[in-house]
C-alpha cells in the first residue's frame, strides 16, 4: 500500500489541488479515484490549514474519513472497547477542528499531531491519570510557516512510516506494542530488541530540523 502511495505522488497532489475549491463534485471525483488512503502527509497538512482558516467542512470530512478509523483502531489495540474507541475517535477529530489554530506544519506532521491528541485522550479515558506536559515554548504556531520546512516535516512522517514498514516483523511489532501501551515503561527500558537505532538514523534529519528551529 505504501509503495502505491508513493508512486502516485502526482495523483495525490492533484487530489489536494481539488481542495482549493472544494465542492461535492470534487469530493466524488476524488473518492472515485480511490486516493483516500494514499494522500500524503503534506496534503493532509493543507487540509488542516483549510479547516483552520475557512472552517472548511469538506476538508474536515476528508481528514475524518482517513484518520478517525485509524484512531479508533489504535485505541482498540490499546485496550478500549469498540464503543469507547468510537467515542474517543470522535472526540479527537472534534479536537482537531477546535484546535486547528495550534497546528504548525513546520513542527509536526498531521499524523504526529493527531497521535498526540489521541494519546492524551487515551490517558484521560483509560488511565484516568494526568500526564504533565512541558511548558509552552515562546514560539507559537506561525501564521505563515516556512513552506519548505513544513513540506519536509510532513514528508518525514511518510519516510518514518516507510522505515517502520521495512523493519523485520518482530521488531516492528515491539515498537507498535510500546505505542499501543502493551509495554510498561520498565519493559520498554529492559527491551534491548527495540530497534531504536534503525529508526533514529531515519529520523535524524527531522531531529536536526527541530533543533534548528528551536535554537
Amino acid at each position, binding site marked *: 500500500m505504501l509503495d502505491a502511495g508513493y508512486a502516485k505522488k502526482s495523483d495525490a497532489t492533484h487530489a489536494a489541488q481539488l481542495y482549493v475549491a472544494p465542492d461535492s463534485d470534487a469530493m466524488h471525483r476524488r473518492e472515485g479515484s480511490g486516493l483516500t488512503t494514499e494522500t500524503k502527509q503534506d496534503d493532509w497538512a493543507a487540509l488542516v490549514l483549510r479547516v483552520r482558516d475557512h472552517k472548511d467542512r469538506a476538508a*474536515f470530512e476528508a481528514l*475524518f474519513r482517513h484518520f*478517525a*478509523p*485509524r484512531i*479508533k*483502531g*489504535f485505541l482498540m489495540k490499546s485496550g478500549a472497547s*469498540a464503543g469507547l474507541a*468510537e467515542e474517543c475517535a*470522535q*472526540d479527537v*477529530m*472534534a*479536537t482537531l477542528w*477546535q484546535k486547528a489554530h495550534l497546528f504548525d506544519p513546520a513542527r*509536526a*506532521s498531521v*499524523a*504526529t499531531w493527531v*497521535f*498526540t491528541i*489521541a*494519546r*492524551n485522550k487515551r*490517558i484521560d479515558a483509560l488511565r484516568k*491519570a*494526568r*500526564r*504533565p*506536559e*512541558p*511548558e*509552552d*515554548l515562546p514560539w507559537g504556531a506561525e501564521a505563515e510557516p516556512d513552506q519548505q520546512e513544513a513540506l519536509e516535516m510532513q514528508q*518525514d*512522517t511518510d519516510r*518514518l*512510516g516507510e522505515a*517502520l*514498514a521495512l523493519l523485520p516483523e518482530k521488531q516492528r511489532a515491539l515498537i*507498535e506494542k*510500546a*505505542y499501543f*501501551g502493551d*509495554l*510498561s*515503561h*520498565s519493559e*520498554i*527500558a529492559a527491551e534491548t530488541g527495540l530497534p*531504536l537505532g534503525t529508526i*533514529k538514523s531515519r*529520523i535524524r534529519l*527531522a*531531529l536536526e530540523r*527541530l*533543533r534548528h528551529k*528551536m*535554537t
Partner: protein
Amino acid sequence: MTIRHHISDSLLMAYSAGQLPEAFSLVLATHLSLCDDCRARLGSFEAVGGAVMEDCAEASMTDGSFDQTMARILQGAPRFAPEPARSTRQGILPAPLVDYIGGDLSAVKWRPLGMGVKQAILPTEKSASARLLFIPAGANVPDHGHRGTELTLVLQGAFRDETDRFGVGDLEIANEDLNHQPVAEMGADCICLAATDAPLRFNRLLARIAQPFFRI
C-alpha cells in the same frame, strides 16, 4: 546552563507513548521545559507514534459518526471542559512543577528530614511518588540503593555521587544497580525534583527505621 545528563531513549519513548506513571512524567516534563535537545528528541519519538497510528489497522466508524461529530462541533461541544490556564515559570521552577506546587518556591510545604535536609511530597497518583528535596550546601543524602527506578532532576545548586556531577537541568536515572550517596556541592543549597516507583533502600539502620515515617 549546560545540561550534560539527558532523558534516555527508552524513557523518552515511554513518555511519548503515554506509558509513564504521573510522577515520572512530571520529572520529564520539567526537564523537557529546560532542555531543547530532549524536546527535539521527544518530537521525533512522537513522530514514531504518528507513523504507528498511520499504519494501524483501521476500525470502521459507525454509520453517521461524521455527522454526529459535526453536530457536536457546531453545538460548541459541551463535553469539552475549558482548558485550565497554564502556569508560567517561577524563578527556578518550570511551569509543570509550578502546577504541582501551586505557586513559587515560597509555597512549598517543606518537612525536615534531619541534618538540614528537607522534602516536600507532591500530589500524584500512587504508582510512583514525586518529591522536592532540599539539601544544604555540603550536606549529604543518606546512602541508599533502589528497588525500582529513581529519577533526580537538579533545579538549583549541584550534587555529586559515585557516578558524576549533576548541575542545574541534569537528570540522573538510577536503578537497582546503583548504590549512591549524593552530596550537595558547596556554594549553593541544592534543590532537586525526584521520583521513584519503589521505596528507596537505605543502607544504614537509622535511615531504614526513619523511612516509614518520612515516606522516602
